[in-house]
């Protein structure tokens, strides 16, 4: 136990050291001359960032150049809403497409080379194309998220549909299962397992699609605020918006991981988890 406490103390000391260096090293006179990375103009300082957070949380005026209180929440909401919509639409369409294609062999064989080609395409690079065609509204952002989420979910669902043990299907057929019963009791539960397993990654993809869209052609959202702060070289605002974005991203991905565990609690690898808890 003493060892564990020492380890935690060492971790805290590490965090403190980084914060202290970040706060105080830039104040050493002349340091920015030979180490421009320590210029507070670029890296702000923990004190200023904390003060800005406090100001946003407690006042309602518009003190900031980029970030005003209230505004942060409006932008956060814009990003969050597009991300969630894109996630839901992407997961459901990806699931249906993967299920259908995995059950229709001839169709799957025909489109296979195109799927490989689309999969190799760097989809983040398509973001500017979508923005040029569909603009920067909510619909366009959802579409960006969908574009990335759909393929991730689709490929996993498709692989799940192809991975069903033929012996299991044969056995059910011998026992007299109709095609419909087979689909409902064997195929869909198996395939859904593969879809659920990819949910955290799909959430991360949805965030990336929406935020890169906001970076590139935003009119709203945290990604847009971040690019504005970058353009005006407001390091403190950038850090505040970025920290908010990172916290939200981590929370959303964590939520998706929980959802996965919930939905897959009957699987062996998750059952042991439940047992321990």
């Amino acid at each position: 136990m003493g060892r564990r406490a020492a380890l935690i103390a060492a971790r805290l000391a590490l965090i403190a050291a980084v914060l202290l260096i970040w706060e105080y090293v830039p104040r050493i006179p002349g340091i920015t001359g030979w180490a421009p990375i320590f210029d507070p103009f670029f890296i702000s300082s923990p004190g200023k960032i904390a003060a800005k957070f406090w100001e946003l949380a407690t006042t309602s005026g518009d003190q900031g150049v980029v970030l005003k209180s209230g505004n942060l929440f409006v932008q956060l909401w814009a990003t969050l809403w597009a991300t969630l919509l894109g996630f839901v639409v992407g997961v459901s369409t990806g699931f249906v497409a993967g299920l259908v294609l995995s059950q229709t062999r001839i169709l799957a064989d025909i489109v296979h080379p195109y799927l490989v080609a689309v999969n190799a395409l760097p989809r983040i690079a398509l973001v500017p194309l979508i923005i040029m065609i569909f603009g920067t509204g909510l619909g366009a952002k959802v579409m960006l998220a969908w574009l990335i989420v759909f393929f991730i979910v689709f490929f996993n669902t498709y692989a799940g549909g192809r991975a069903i043990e033929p012996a299991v299907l044969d056995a059910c057929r011998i026992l007299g299962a109709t095609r419909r019963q087979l689909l409902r009791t064997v195929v869909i539960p198996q395939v859904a397992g593969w879809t659920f397993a990819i949910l955290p990654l799909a959430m991360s993809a949805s965030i990336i699609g929406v935020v890169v869209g906001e970076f590139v052609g935003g009119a709203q959202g945290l990604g847009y605020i971040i690019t504005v702060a970058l353009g005006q070289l407001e390091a403190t605002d950038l850090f505040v918006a970025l920290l908010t974005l990172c916290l939200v991203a981590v929370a959303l991905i964590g939520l998706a991981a929980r959802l996965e565990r919930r939905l897959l609690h009957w699987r062996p690898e998750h059952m042991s988890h439940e047992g321990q808890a």
Partner: protein
Amino acid sequence: MSRRGVIVQSGRLLVLVALLSAWEILPRIPALRDHTFLDPNFVSLPSLVAMRLWETTFGAKAGYLWVHAGASLGAALLGFVCGALAGFSMGLALSQSALARGLLKPFIDAFSAVPPVLLVPLITLVFGLGTASKIATSIYIVFFVVFYNSYKGGSALPESLTASCRLLGGSRWAIMRTVIVPSSSAWAFAAFPTAIGYALIGVVVAEFFGSPVGLGSIIITSMNTGSATDLMVSIFALAVMGSGLVALMRLAEARTLHWRPENRAA
């Protein structure tokens, strides 16, 4: 060829022809052009894209595409080498030292939880609009991918293996050199195709933020000037380059790790 084979092959050809002709013909229909997004100004035409591709690679403006593709490629590769070295040594160190693991692993886990692309603006703020930002982005992305695989490779060794080596008189250094590093590097190698693909995407996103040269920069310029053909050409070039790099990395992996069971079979 079997009957089924014929159906599949002709089906594939049919899909390709249908897609390309739909893309070529539909935007020329006035009703669609005026009322939907199927406007050559937005989606370009396959013939225009093919012509522009030729023009910017070997034709009238030869070299234009090479310069930008080369800039992105160079930054991705340099970042890849640095990031892979850093990720590998960190992964190896943390898998071997309980102290380093206890101290640093929670922080690495915390940073890896954030999708790296979100941090590109911060990297741009600190490193500027030039090549340094692109390389830093690439390093950051590659580091995590390689780190986790090397770490796993370094910790996944069966205890019995290292124990027998010790029994046969292997010093710590000898075991490190002949057992742990080869195992860990095999795992690291397995991450390289993914890592290089991500690195290239990272570089392109970094170039979105106002870099003067690179594929990402011409993608953004074409978006802002509304040049669909240029946009398609640069996306196509990026896709080809990305697939090529990943395929090369897979080949290198199979060559270097020919002693591994999964490669021996082939």
